[in-house]
């Protein structure tokens, strides 16, 4: 459903002690948007992503997922979610892919994928397994369903992590530097899966250093600097003549964006 706002973030602020990491960030993602968040290390892009599914609690600001606002209460100068139940529900609608995969090491690949659907969504096991097998097929590791995470390469583990997130049928997928922990030759296989997802119309928010992904797959690029959105726009503008001097300098460090 194009035109539906899947994610809306209003004026998010986040401080760690006296250090303000996010200084008021707003962002909207329509259905099917693929947004790349770029920025130097320390610009707050990962913190921003983690605030959206409340792995970090924003100091201030509003978050709407598929129109539902995350209710917050302010107590003793700190902000807390009003309802853990709502937080759990919101998180189940946001697929998160971590930089270092974070697969459950004691579970097989199949068990990793059916864990959420079975125990969070409480769906029947047979159904979950059938879907998990289809997902494994989709990310190209169907033969590994009974292996354990430690038996897989980094690229394979990350593809399992993507399948695990997809098994929850999320409204939005959040990627936190999904290829940064991978050997260069394994980056491609993960990016291919992400590109296929984008082409299917999945709404995605991707913190990345992969300029080729930002440029060729995403339909919007957001450049963060010192806790603020420095500039944003379509990739053709951002990587073309419309780039701000700061973004131009940033991508200069990546060899002109390639």
């Amino acid at each position, binding site marked *: 459903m194009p035109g539906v706002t899947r994610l809306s973030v209003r004026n998010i602020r986040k401080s760690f002690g006296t250090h303000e990491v996010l200084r008021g960030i707003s962002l909207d993602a329509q259905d099917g948007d693929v947004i790349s968040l770029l920025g130097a290390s320390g610009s707050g892009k990962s913190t921003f992503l983690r605030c959206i*599914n409340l*792995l970090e609690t924003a100091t201030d600001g509003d978050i709407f997922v598929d129109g539902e606002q995350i209710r917050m209460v302010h107590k003793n100068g700190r902000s807390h979610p009003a309802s*853990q139940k709502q*937080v*759990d*529900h919101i*998180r*189940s609608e*946001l697929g*998160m892919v*971590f930089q*270092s995969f*974070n*697969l*459950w*090491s*004691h*579970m*097989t690949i199949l068990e990793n994928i059916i*864990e*959420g659907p079975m*125990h*969070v969504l409480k769906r029947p096991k047979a159904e979950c397994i059938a879907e998990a097998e289809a997902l494994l097929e989709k990310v190209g590791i169907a*033969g*590994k369903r*009974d*292996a*354990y*995470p*430690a*038996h897989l390469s980094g690229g394979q583990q990350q593809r399992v992590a993507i399948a*695990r*997130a997809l098994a*929850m049928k999320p409204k939005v997928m959040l990627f936190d530097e999904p290829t940064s922990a991978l050997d260069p030759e394994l980056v491609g296989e993960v990016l291919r899966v992400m590109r296929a997802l984008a082409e299917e119309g999945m709404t995605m928010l991707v913190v990345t250093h992969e300029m080729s992904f930002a440029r060729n797959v995403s339909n919007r690029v957001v450049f963060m600097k010192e806790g603020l959105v420095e500039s944003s726009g379509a990739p053709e503008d951002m990587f073309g003549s419309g780039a701000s001097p700061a973004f131009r300098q940033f991508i200069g460090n990546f060899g002109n964006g390639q």
Partner: protein
Amino acid sequence: MDFAFLFSSMATLLAAVPTTLILFSLSVLCGGLLGLLIVTMRVSGNPVLRNFAKGYIFVFRGSPLMIQMFLVFYGLGQFGFIRYSFLWPFLREPMVCAILSLALCTAGYSAEIFRSGIRAVSPKEIEAGRAIGMSGFLLVRRIIAPIAFRHALPAYSTEIVLMMKSTALASLVTVWEVTGVAQRLISQTYRTMEVFLCAAVIYLVLNFIILQAMALLEYSLSRHRRPAPSAA
């Protein structure tokens, strides 16, 4: 060597094995459950519960089990509210006192062993659980506890073996388990060597079985740490 005497001693001691096994299994079971409760308090955010658990662990790890057992067996009856309570018919039984003090003691050690297991759970795996919509008891049951238990298992095996040996102390509060029966036999026959040798063999065999069982459990729970089967 007097084999006839060895065999008859062994037969006498074997008759006491069920008592030792009851002492062992009930105290490990109750102590393990109590240990879970204590470790839950120990890692909770509540400072009152946390400090109570710290105090509990300090007291039961820091004093000799034998003294704890004497305090339970001889001490509790001195309090009128216990002596005249509905619990007294149970608490005056030596067996109950022995199981109670063994359980109270192992709960302190078990709690610390469980805590070390919990601390070894990767925060990243917990975070993955949260990110998928888990919290509270579901997160503990599905993610934290299974991983923590695997980490704690080797140390917990040791604690269980120590408990098997600690049941010998129950003889001091007149429970006729293997060691108690052995001492009675010695006082009747003055043949220390043979009788204690038989007792030692019994404990060795029991612990051998326990350790084998624990090793099997550990093996079956650690498939993820072994090399992948070549077919995969």
